[in-house]
């Protein structure tokens, strides 16, 4: 598929600190890409670079093959950027905020009205249209910011925490719209809502210290942990001897404890029975088994050294 966004050895420094270190990757048209990582790893900075809000210190960013630095005006028309924080004009109504951006991008009034109807209605925004931006909830502001960016019909939408501050219903409506948009637009977003990311992505970029630590679909990312399961056994009393005995079970991986809870990973579910067998004389209070997900992948311990 054709590349929508291409980064070639893009780097960003703030003072002496490297925020982004020689990033090179491409994003296909019509795909939805999630960027995740712990705080201050450069995710939002990357989004700012891609949106044209900031320039890289070195390297190049291409949008639809156009160099962002050399073809600034053309590339900016192709991008819609929804920042994390509310940046609406507080003394304008929601509709005026959207129409202001439509006027900035010279969108015909009739077309703007059609797009407002197309995007604002599904998000349930219309009843709030005459309210000042400062008088509506953060979630409503965020949805307005999304519609505002869609008003000039950009090919690429970049969102920093797309569902930040939203209630459950708004989150659902927003993702319904974004998934609908995915057919015609490239969507890149930064989020800490891992459950949402698991549901909505073609690709996940896991960031760590300004570099892409992992890149791919969740299933692919979890390949390294294939068949790994996470187990928890809560004992009535987990003595040091018992803990030591359990950690010595050959098939147990990355064991640790929290009070009376024994926590470990295993490649197959049989590991669980090995542990149960070893501790069969002890009183067990609770058991928990789950397949690994994105959260586990991002666990700092996990990221640092993996499971093996």
């Amino acid at each position, binding site marked *: 598929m054709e590349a929508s966004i291409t980064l070639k050895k893009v780097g960003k420094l703030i003072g002496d600190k490297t925020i982004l270190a020689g990033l090179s990757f491409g994003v296909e048209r019509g795909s939805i890409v999630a960027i995740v990582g712990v705080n201050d790893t450069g995710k939002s900075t990357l989004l700012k670079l891609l*949106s*044209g*809000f*900031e*320039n890289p210190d070195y390297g190049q960013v291409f949008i639809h093959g156009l160099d962002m630095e050399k073809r*600034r*005006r*053309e590339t*900016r*028309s192709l*991008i819609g*950027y929804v*920042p994390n*924080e*509310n*940046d*609406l*004009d*507080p*003394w*304008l*109504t929601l509709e*005026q905020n959207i*129409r*202001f*951006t439509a*006027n*900035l*991008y010279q969108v015909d009034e009739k077309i703007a009205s059609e797009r407002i109807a197309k995007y604002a209605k599904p998000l349930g925004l219309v009843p709030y249209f005459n309210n*000042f931006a400062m008088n509506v909830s953060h979630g409503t502001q965020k949805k307005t910011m999304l519609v*505002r960016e869609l008003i000039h019909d950009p090919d690429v939408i970049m969102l920093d925490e797309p569902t930040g501050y939203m209630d459950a219903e708004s989150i659902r409506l927003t993702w319904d719209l974004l998934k609908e948009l995915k057919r015609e637009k490239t969507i890149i977003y930064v989020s800490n809502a891992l459950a949402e990311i698991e549901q909505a992505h073609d690709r996940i970029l896991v960031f760590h210290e300004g570099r892409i630590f992992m890149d791919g679909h969740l299933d692919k990312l979890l390949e390294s942990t294939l068949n790994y399961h996470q187990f928890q056994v809560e004992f009535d009393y987990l003595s040091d001897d018992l803990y030591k005995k359990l950690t010595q079970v050959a098939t147990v991986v990355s064991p640790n404890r929290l009070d009376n809870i024994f926590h470990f990973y295993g490649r197959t579910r049989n590991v669980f029975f090995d542990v149960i067998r070893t501790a069969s004389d002890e009183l067990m209070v609770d058991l928990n088994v789950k397949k690994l997900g994105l959260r586990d992948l991002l666990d700092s311990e996990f990221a640092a050294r993996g499971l093996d």
Partner: protein
Amino acid sequence: MIYALLMRRIWLWKNRLISSFFLLLVLPFSVYSLVSLSFKNIMGKSLSGMPYEFWVIPGLVFIISSLGLYPLIYRDFFDLRIHRKVLINVALAPYRKRALIGGYLCVAGLEALMLGIVSLLIMSGLATYPLTMIETVVMFLCLMVYLFFLGNYFITLGLAIDTQTTLFLMTALSFIFILFGNGYLIEFGFFPIGVETFLTWQPLSIPFRIFQVYFRTGIMDWALLTGCIVLGILWTLANTIILKRKLIH
């Protein structure tokens, strides 16, 4: 760009219609009452022998336009900027930064000019109107150049300063300077020679001085006016650089 910014100003007016109109009417009336009615008893006549209450009217128009211009620039380049609103969104639109600064200047200048026109109409009802039609046109021409300068000055302040307390102090200082250091209320001839020379050649006072020379002698200094416009353009470009730096940090 200008259309979008202009429409936004119209919406903001519409959203605050009563308070906006109240200020539009009260501001010239208050300034005229508090300044002209008292100063005419102190000054009596200008250095050229004209009754002070007539002489001061163009200066009051400049002052009222300055007062009208400030909140517009403050709002966009300081208040909304430090609260990370609007400006970033506008800056990401496909326009050059100088077009952005120029657009804001144009729209804010236009609104301040309208305020000047309305205030002149109000004051001409309160006192005998001292200017001919041509003098009025020249005054508004000089006022436009002045607003171009002043707008740039306010933008520099709004962009360069990041804390409210500093900005308020600088604003207070600026308005003392605008009121008393531009020859609007007190002619430069009343100041000691050194101060007079400085005030005469500081950029913000030049447009009004051009008008005063025309008012007294009928001679228009086009070269100086053109120089002012060139300086204003350079100032706009300097503001473009400041804006770029501020948006990044």
